[in-house]
């Protein structure tokens, strides 16, 4: 028998018929009204949740992701109402006999129905975008994650339509078709849900089958090729099953078994395709700041691994965080073949959990052959930090100098404490200690940090510092105006002179910041550097944002010193520090200096010491506040400090370019009471109402015409 390719002419004729049967009938608009009402309810309640509890948090994780996950359920409940009639109605009316005796192939009939019904489901989804458009008018947000969310929903819709179409061929009763579709989809959902039932290996297999696990990444703003392939396979299988069901009218008895075997064979083939796709997965992270992509920093660390590492996540069945935990393990595991990873149910493996001392759900154990460390939170930098700590031969020590009123790495105070910086450094694999210079710099210290300080340095201390630098010492000095004049003089002799002034930038005051807050960025020549070049420029060359400084002083550089950060073009420096701090100062052409002014710099010079310490290195930043618990998470403050210390420690390859966690004044949503009311009315009244009105209008019009 000759097989024919689908003809565009016949498919388009069928498609016109199907579109008319879908869009010109009241059913779609009644279903649409229910769909939009549920979607609107979720929109409003998720928005309310975000505004109440997620304020200042990432809007994508705390609003859009919830919304997309909720819309998934709404699709599950409504798409079967659209697919139920596709073949069941044709059977009931007997019109299927017309289609089967017209010069149409089953594939053409199926294509037209799939396309038309998917178009209807997508039209319903598109209508929900009206509410998002209203939000966008109030506070613009990035399109990337919203796009992937809708892409994922559209793929779910196609899959639901394909399943529903198949089930609709098995009966001439539309209610049976709809109910069996809802049941099947729920089953595919529950597969990944009821993790307690099957064993852990079965669970891995089942959750791979679950439609909804494959939606997870889309809802977060990430497109993964394995998910695209999965949806493709699912639709292909449902379509093949539908064609087999339609073709069964022509079967002799003997065809049933071969067809079932054929479908099973197809299932196995698609399973292999899916497994291959899983293995060769490519991710496209469309979130702003690429939240779900391994940072280049982490990647570099993992690529340098020299010994096997096992990651074990201890989870509890049904925990909503499981997906992102597993996802993190996968991202980390992808980088190196030395990393093995698995997810373990705590309740099933209490002995294993006890062995590693795990006492919390969601903990990840990082284990090498002889050591292990428990990470309490599935965060990339924590896991990578633990890997780094365990696999390094010796941990380098960062010593915070004390004794002159410096800020302390053990102090949790918001204004003055450095605990946030210290714990971040530990995560990066450093040991952090407070040290004094009595009797010289301890031998095991790799990097010395001077964080401000109000008391004077003695000549003896400076001599000890000199001696240490001659041995290839490494120093990070964070000095506000007026702080440590003796140390400032010592630094001046080494090519970086902190000036006794304060830098102001009233034109570029940060959102609501004080007058003395400025945003500094790398000078053009540094920004143009390649990160792979061995230069101190790597400290700032790849920062994605500026650095927030408060009461910063300018630095004057001699030759050999490299400027790392400078203030804006409109900035200027004044020596009237006291007046500047109280905001009572104007630019004075005579005494003040015009910007841009260097506020951070580095210098290295060769010394005759041990081969691994062939150069002394210094980094100076004209501000200490950027390192405090209060400021460290703003803009690129943390990356610049981590980078400076990493460079000083001689670990340039590990320079962190970590994505900043928080942007001041962005990703926050303020709604007035009136705006909230408008959002509510739009989502739960106007949109569903319009759909129901359309249904009523169609009904009345058809009655009038009849």
């Amino acid at each position: 028998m000759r097989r024919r390719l689908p003809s565009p002419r016949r498919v388009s004729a069928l498609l016109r018929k199907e579109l008319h049967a879908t869009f010109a009938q009241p059913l779609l608009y009644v279903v649409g009204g229910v769909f939009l009402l549920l979607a609107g309810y979720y929109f409003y309640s998720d928005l309310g949740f975000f505004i109440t509890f997620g304020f200042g948090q990432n809007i994508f994780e705390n609003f859009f992701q919830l919304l997309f996950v909720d819309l998934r359920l709404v699709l599950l409940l409504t798409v079967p109402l659209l697919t139920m009639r596709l073949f069941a109605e044709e059977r009931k009316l007997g019109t299927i006999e017309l289609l089967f005796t017209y010069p149409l192939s089953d594939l053409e009939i199926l294509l037209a129905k799939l396309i038309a019904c998917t178009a209807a489901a997508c039209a319903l989804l598109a209508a929900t975008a009206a509410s998002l458009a209203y939000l966008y008018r109030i506070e613009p947000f990035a399109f990337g994650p919203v796009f992937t969310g809708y892409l994922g929903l559209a793929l779910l819709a196609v899959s639901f339509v394909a399943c529903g179409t198949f089930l609709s061929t098995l009966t001439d009763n539309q209610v049976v078709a709809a109910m069996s579709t809802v049941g099947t989809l729920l089953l595919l959902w529950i597969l990944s849900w009821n993790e307690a039932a099957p064993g852990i290996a079965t669970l891995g297999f089942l959750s791979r089958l679950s439609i909804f696990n494959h939606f997870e990444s889309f809802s977060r703003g990430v497109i993964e090729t394995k998910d695209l392939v999965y949806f493709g396979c699912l639709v292909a299988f449902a379509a093949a099953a539908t064609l087999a069901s339609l073709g069964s009218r022509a079967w002799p008895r003997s065809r049933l078994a071969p067809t079932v075997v054929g479908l099973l064979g197809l299932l196995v083939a698609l399973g292999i395709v899916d497994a291959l796709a899983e293995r060769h997965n490519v991710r496209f992270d469309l979130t702003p700041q690429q939240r779900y992509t391994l940072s280049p920093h982490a990647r570099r660390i993992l690529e340098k691994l020299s010994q096997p590492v096992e990651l074990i996540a201890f989870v509890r069945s049904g925990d909503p965080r499981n997906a992102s935990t597993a996802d993190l393990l996968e991202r980390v595991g992808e980088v190196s073949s030395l990393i093995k990873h698995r997810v373990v149910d705590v309740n099933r493996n209490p002995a294993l959990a006890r062995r590693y001392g795990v006492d919390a759900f969601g903990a990840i154990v990082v284990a090498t052959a002889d050591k292990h460390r428990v990470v309490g939170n599935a965060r990339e930098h924590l896991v990578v930090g633990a890997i780094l700590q365990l696999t390094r031969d010796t941990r380098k020590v960062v010593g915070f100098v004390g004794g002159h009123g410096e800020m302390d790495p053990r102090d949790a105070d918001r204004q003055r404490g450095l605990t946030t910086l210290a714990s971040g450094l530990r995560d990066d694999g450093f040991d952090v200690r407070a040290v004094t210079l009595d009797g010289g710099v301890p031998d095991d210290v790799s990097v010395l940090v001077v964080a401000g300080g109000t008391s004077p340095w003695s000549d003896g201390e400076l001599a000890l510092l000199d001696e240490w630098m001659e041995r290839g010492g490494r120093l990070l000095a964070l000095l506000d105006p007026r702080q440590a004049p003796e140390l400032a003089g010592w630094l001046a002799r080494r090519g970086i002179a902190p000036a006794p002034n304060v830098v102001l930038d009233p034109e570029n005051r940060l959102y609501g910041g004080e007058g003395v807050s400025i945003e500094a960025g790398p000078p053009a020549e540094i920004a143009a550097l390649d990160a792979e070049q061995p230069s101190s420029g790597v400290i700032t060359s790849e920062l994605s944002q500026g650095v927030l400084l408060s009461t910063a002083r300018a630095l004057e550089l001699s030759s050999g010193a490299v400027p790392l950060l400078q203030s804006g073009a409109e900035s200027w420096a004044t020596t009237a520090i006291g007046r500047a701090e109280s905001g009572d100062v104007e630019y004075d052409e005579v005494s003040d200096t015009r910007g841009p002014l260097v506020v951070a710099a580095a210098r290295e010079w060769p010394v005759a010491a041990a081969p691994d310490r062939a150069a002394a290195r210094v980094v100076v930043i004209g501000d200490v506040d950027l390192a405090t618990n209060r400021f460290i998470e703003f803009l690129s403050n943390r990356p610049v400090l981590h980078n400076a210390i990493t460079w000083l420690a001689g670990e340039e390859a590990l320079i962190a370019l970590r994505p900043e966690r928080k942007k001041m004044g962005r990703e926050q949503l303020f709604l007035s009471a009136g705006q909230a009311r408008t959002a509510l009315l739009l989502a739960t009244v106007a949109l569903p109402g319009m759909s129901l009105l359309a249904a009523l209008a169609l009904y009345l019009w058809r009655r009038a015409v009849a």
Partner: protein
Amino acid sequence: MIEVDALSKSYGPIPALREVSFQVAAGEIVGLLGPNGSGKTTLLRILTGFFPADAGSARVAGVRLSDDPFEVRRRVGYLPEQSPLYPEVSVRRFLRFAADVKLGDPERRDERVAAVIAECGLAAVQKRRIGTLSKGYRQRVGIAQALIGRPQVLVLDEPTAGLDPAQVLEVRQLIAALGGGTTVLLSSHVLADVASVCDRVLMLHLGRLVLAERIDTLRRQVRSSGELVLRTRASDEQLERLLSRVAEAEETRRDRASDGSVLLHLSHPARDGDEASRRTAERVTSALARACVEAGLPVLELGPRSRTLEDLFVDLLGERPQ
């Protein structure tokens, strides 16, 4: 135009068609008769490419079904039983859809749709939704969609089922008026349909072809069947005596009516409708009349039994068609 050779088909263990063979010439209008369950619809579905036969072969409009059912479907117009249609669609939209699918040339679609609407008398209702039409109109729409692709063969499954007498007449006229040498195969269990429009009759029973004959031949057979009826009032004893006196008549059936009369069915040897048979009939009839008068029995009715095509059915099928 239709050549069917030893077609068989079964549904699971139940045979629906058993080695059916026949031919239909171009331009012929052929009726397919048979009681419900005789395999008519199965046969038509095979010939229209709905599903294939299990065994045997068929050639429709010059194309072997097993080679290219797709092409057969293009050349055949089919009205399925009970004329299934989309109730929510207007007559014209539906016919346009059918034309889009069946006509190779989309530009002449509207022209063809208009022609079919005129031919089937649908002009007045072309903008109405099919669901609002009377059954007669719906049947016309069904025939219109079958005609839209200029089929070489038109297959109609029970085209008059469920229609009132006026509508039946309309549909029959519509079929009879199909000009242009279209070959028509129509199934029915209403004998009158077939008798009024068909040239030839095929009869199926339990999946077998039990009759393939021209209508006029059948009519002739019916007229000369060699049977007589006699109605009188008599006891069984009197009747036995009466019949013993007319040796050539043999009783086949005896029905007593509530008014006390009795109806005798009698047969006589000659059946072939020739001159000898006619004379035999005359002789037996007058012998019976004489015997009655001599026995003093009233002759309430006497003559050849008037047979219909339906009686022929009964003879062939052993049961009465609906």
